[in-house]
């Protein structure tokens, strides 16, 4: 018998606007010792389905309309709140996307680990502590005895996720639900966490539900894959079936969204930007050693090319882009843009140059002013640089909206009324408004769903051609970069460790670090 058997689950949200069926009659099962992956875009109902099993959706507006969810023969949907409370955290545990927001910042991780144990089981504090230490060791926290009394902010993102996993496992659950547990992490860390989850699941022989928007992430670990779209399961099967014999067009679309081969590099003889011995250090007070975010970096960007910049968080890749654009103060070195040294510019001259270089940011939720309509956001650069005047600005804005594929009747809406992909389109429109020659794209798609990622990348490629753009594409995702970039720079701890075309780097990586990065690409087997 399956550990969890969900039959015809229906969940809807009742709002003033009407009833919205979030989960529409789905059935799936989870076996002990197997990983079942649920794949879908945001809004597909994948998280709602799992949360409703544990009574974790707010009711109202949420409402479970029907179905059964037999967990070891007991129907979770019929269980009372107090019964569910006993099941949650003991028999079924969850890990979430963002470990920082799920840990209490004012409590040491040791205390937080012991809490569920003391709540659910009859143990002494000393026993709980011994158990917690043992688990921290198991999830790969170095020196748990000494870090036991540390606070969450003293850990890196990957380590925090390990703590979260330890917390989930501390009561030895039979079922672990992992909701996008690696989405907020770097690729190399992601690979480690995926490995950890797979190992723990094998060693402990538990069932795992792994929720993700990205098929590639689960390629190496999932036994069963369930693909959801708009509240329905469109396809389900074992991993081999989904990846090699997918039948449903949506599954095929998801597979197609996994970035493919290396781009055939094009020749770009003319140099647009020369970066020479660039250093950007961030001081930490008078006596402390500065943080060398960018440390003596030199490279060229040629007119019309897309230069990929890859590295983990903390490698300085974003800081290089921001240094070139003069968004952070440069410590030393030069950036020659078409013969002008950007590091020496001030005031009006700098403003003139800003028109020629723009930036697209990672998080379209943060990079748009929440109190400005699309119209205001797009009109601002047009008016500022005198590209349009008050009379012609409206047609300029509409032209930009056409270019980035936004419907014209959205012009009066505010950012919160848009989806992530649409917001990124607005942000791209704003960056292109000044008709720049050079654009820094800082992880422009990593906050988006995979299918949306593919659309935005295509849009950027098309617009790049149309506007004759030179682009510095910053990303932690090698698969995306090699699909897009003519040349790639690999960055590690503020220094360029390797550069070459996508083909060269993938076939013959010279440096150890590049090899490690390549190993971490999720679903690497799919790429070849």
């Amino acid at each position, binding site marked *: 018998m399956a550990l969890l058997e969900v039959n015809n689950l229906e969940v809807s949200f009742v709002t003033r606007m009407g009833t919205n069926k979030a989960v529409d009659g789905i059935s799936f099962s989870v076996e002990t010792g197997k990983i079942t992956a649920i794949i879908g875009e945001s809004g597909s109902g994948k998280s709602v389905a799992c949360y409703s099993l544990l009574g974790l959706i707010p009711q109202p507006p949420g409402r479970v309309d029907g179905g059964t969810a037999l967990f070891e023969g007991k129907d979770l949907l019929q269980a009372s709140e107090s019964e569910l409370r006993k099941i949650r955290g003991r028999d079924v545990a969850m890990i979430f996307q963002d470990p920082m927001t799920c840990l209490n910042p004012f409590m040491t991780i040791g205390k937080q680990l012991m809490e569920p144990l003391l709540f659910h089981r009859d143990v002494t504090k000393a026993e709980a502590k011994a158990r917690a230490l043992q688990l921290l060791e198991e999830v790969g926290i170095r020196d748990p005895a000494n870090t036991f009394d540390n606070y969450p902010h003293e850990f890196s993102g990957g380590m925090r996720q390990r703590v979260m996993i330890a917390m989930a496992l501390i009561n030895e659950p039979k079922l672990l639900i992992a909701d996008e547990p690696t989405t907020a992490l770097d690729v190399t860390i992601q690979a480690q966490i995926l490995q950890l989850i797979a190992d723990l699941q094998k060693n402990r022989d538990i069932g795992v539900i792994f929720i993700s928007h990205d098929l590639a992430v689960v390629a190496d670990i999932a036994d069963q894959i369930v693909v959801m779209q708009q509240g329905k399961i469109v396809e389900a099967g074992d991993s081999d079936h989904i990846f090699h014999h997918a039948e449903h067009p949506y599954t095929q679309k998801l597979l197609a969204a996994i970035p493919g081969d290396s781009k055939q590099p094009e020749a770009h003889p003319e140099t647009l930007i020369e970066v020479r011995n660039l250093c950007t250090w961030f001081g930490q007070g008078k006596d402390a050693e500065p943080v060398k975010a960018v440390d003596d970096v030199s490279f060229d960007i040629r007119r019309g090319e897309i230069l990929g910049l890859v590295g983990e968080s903390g490698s300085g890749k974003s800081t290089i882009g921001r240094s070139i654009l003069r968004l952070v103060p440069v410590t030393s070195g030069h950036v020659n843009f078409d013969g002008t040294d950007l590091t020496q510019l001030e005031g009006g001259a700098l403003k003139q140059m800003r028109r020629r270089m723009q930036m697209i940011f990672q998080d379209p939720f943060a990079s748009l002013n*929440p109190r400005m309509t699309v119209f*205001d956001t797009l009109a*601002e650069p047009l008016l500022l640089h005198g590209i349009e005047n008050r009379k012609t600005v409206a047609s300029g804005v509409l032209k930009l909206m056409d270019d980035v594929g936004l419907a014209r009747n959205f*012009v009066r809406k505010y950012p919160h009324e848009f989806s992530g992909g649409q917001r990124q389109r607005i942000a791209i429109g704003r960056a292109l408004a*000044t008709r720049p020659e050079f654009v820094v794209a800082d992880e422009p798609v990593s906050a988006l769903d995979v299918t949306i990622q593919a659309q935005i990348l295509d849009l950027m490629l098309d617009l790049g051609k149309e506007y004759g753009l030179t682009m510095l594409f910053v990303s932690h995702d090698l698969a995306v970069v090699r699909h897009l970039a003519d040349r790639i720079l690999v960055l590690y701890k503020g220094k360029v460790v390797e550069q070459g075309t996508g083909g060269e780097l993938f076939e013959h990586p010279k440096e150890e670090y590049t090899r490690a990065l390549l190993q971490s690409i999720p679903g690497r087997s799919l790429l070849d």
Partner: protein
Amino acid sequence: MTSEIISDITEAEQGTSLWKDAWLRLRKNHLAIVGLVLLVALIIIALLTPWIAPYSYETQNLELGATPPSAQHWLGTDIFGRDLMTQIMYGGRVSLAVGFVATSVALLIGVTWGAIAGYVGGRVDAVMMRLVDIMYALPFMIFIVLLMVVFGRNMLLLFLAIGAVEWLTMARIMRSQVQSLRQQEFVEAAISLGLSPGKIIVRHLIPNALGPIIVYTTLTIPAVMLLEAFLSFLGLGIQPPKTSWGLLISYGAETMEEFPWLLIFPGLALSITLFSLNFLGDGLRDALDVRRSKD
């Protein structure tokens, strides 16, 4: 094609500003509109008082003394036989003026000061905020007494003195708002577009910081009115026969048991003002928060 663009443009140009949208939303909030109408009415009455007041504020009738509301004196008279309604009308002039002028002064200085300190940061911020700390540390009473002694007693000075104290908190609130906002990428985007710091503050930072500022402003206006009453009571503000709501209330409180109307009516006037302000402030905050009300 052209006609299509033109029709789109006219649609686009309508209501694309935050303020216009906010007004459209505010109009749907009945409580806020009631508050707004009452406030406007109070201000109009205050402005027209010299022409519409039933009596002169100096007119005493010692023989009459304190009388309850009657046909001649709708709200009664005080112990000197002065018409209470006239007093409340004249008092409103002072109280509303103090409330709005001093708060506006505080708002203007505080928001500008806090926004600049928060946006520029570093040494400028340190110096500007230390100045605020020093002002905070000065005993308020001594500060006012000194001002009064040096410059003599006058209304304008009273406004300035109160404003000069109230802006400090405003500056702190604004600074902390701006500090967290300026970390956001949309500010970086504005810098990379080439906007000047002034424009970034006015167009991007202040509109996003308005929520707490509006709430604090609606709290400041009544606080300022009470502060004026306190100062006047100590003999540092308005002096009889001129009066204000705060003074009327404090005299009314003394004779509350014998002549309750002397406390009730001025208190009512102040309460109506405060309620209106709160409703309007809440409404404004919601209206300016584009995320809250969807239509």
